[in-house]
């Protein structure tokens, strides 16, 4: 459960406007030794970034106030934050739940690198945790 004993826990910023999703991901990540902060929209998330830089971000795409895509673009255009890995966690996918069209869309944005990972709701917990661990350990 606790893979990070003895070292400073890695901090993960969860961005989703659904409180249930935030609670779910918070609990899942905390149980696995991560520290979490959360934001309900892109604007709140931008404020969070100023308080302290997270080691990874999980991002929903459709949110009121400021869309996930806009937040993503701002993040990747900011030299101070562009190295934070982002896992997109969303229910927005293509026909029949195929995530390919949406990934394709994200990858084809001009001048913006694709997100480091893509998870379709509902997530596979093991796969999700594996991706998180891989990404935060890469980033030293």
């Amino acid at each position, binding site marked *: 459960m606790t893979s990070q004993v003895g070292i400073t826990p890695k901090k993960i910023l969860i961005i989703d406007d659904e409180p*249930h999703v935030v609670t779910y991901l918070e609990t899942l990540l905390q149980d696995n030794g991560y520290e979490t902060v959360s934001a309900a929209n892109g604007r709140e998330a931008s404020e969070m970034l100023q308080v302290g830089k997270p080691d990874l971000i999980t991002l929903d795409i459709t949110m009121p106030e400021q*869309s996930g895509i*806009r937040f993503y673009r701002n993040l990747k255009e900011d030299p101070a934050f562009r190295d934070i890995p982002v896992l997109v966690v969303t229910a927005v996918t293509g026909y029949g739940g195929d995530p390919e069209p949406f990934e394709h869309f994200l990858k084809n944005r001009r001048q913006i690198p694709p997100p480091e990972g893509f998870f379709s709701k509902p997530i596979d917990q093991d796969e999700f945790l594996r991706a998180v661990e891989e990404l935060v350990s890469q980033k030293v």
Partner: protein
Amino acid sequence: MEDLREWIRQELWDQVPVAISVIDRSFHIIEANRCFANTYGEWRKRPCYEVYKGRTQRCNNCAAVETFEDGQLRIREETGLIREGLQTYYLVHMVPFFRPSGELPYIIEMSTDITAHKVLEKEKLEAERLAAVGQTVAGLAHGIKNLLMGLEGGVYVFKSGLHQADSERMLKGWGMLDENIARISTFVKEFLEFAKGRVPQVHLVSPNRIAQQVFGLFEHKAELAGITLRTNLQPDLPYALMDEDGIHTCLVNLVSNALDACEISDRPSRSVVLSTREEGGTLVFEVTDDGTGMDYEVKKRVFTNFFTTKGSDRGTGLGLLTTKKIVQEHGGRVSYESAEGEGSVFRLQFPRDRLPHPVEEAKSEMLCKTGG
């Protein structure tokens, strides 16, 4: 050349694959060509409405009456009964026959059978309907995915609380389960509501008032999302025979979709315009958004294959299907255009002569047809 002219004089009348009849001012057929006789049967001394439509009295909206009145050429699509009692679709030209004195004693009705085209058109509509059903199923799947995420989250949080003997966490997980079950219930109810459908209540209504109501519904929500929502309504737009609730639903769906499209766009300034206008006998509602910064291919996909709303509080993915259904019930059509970087326009077009009749009137019309 001479033989050709001779053929035109002698044979053209009976050789053309167009049913031609000549109608006098008492609406009796006084002359007809071979194609007409082959299609509609005996015509001598019979009134046009009886021969063409099997009716006992003159048709409402009779194009011949109008042409007798104003001497203008008219082109219309009509349905009629051919000899075997089969229904046929034909394109009719009402050509006024003027004497040199200016008198207008006859109208030449030239009817071209377009039944085959109409059948194709119907098949195409059916295919579109099936495509819409496919989209609905995809939309439902997305709704269910969000619900599943909530349920799996609830199960996880509950179990986590159980392992750590943390009763507060257990309660939190249980609450998530509870709430998501309630959402499923709402979701299913809404879906059944749609499947059941409703009888349209047709009244004379103000199209602009419906648009205003829908605008009022979304004004605040748009402002919160930082999207400018405006109306552009043609003043003095005539009233129309419509199902007010149905049209309201259509506009709610389109405006809601446009706002959703704006929400996933990354442009700093976004706006949605709801407009109404009259265009050559057709009532038009339009919802325009300039919010999408997506390339064409993706935009197409977003509108056909994506479901951008989430949870039961933001829709069930039935919007497009419901809208199409209601618009078709009004004899109208739904169309859209998307241009890269410029946004999208969704358009509802209602030709006024195809709008439904109020319930009582529709009934008497039916009786007339079957009685004839």
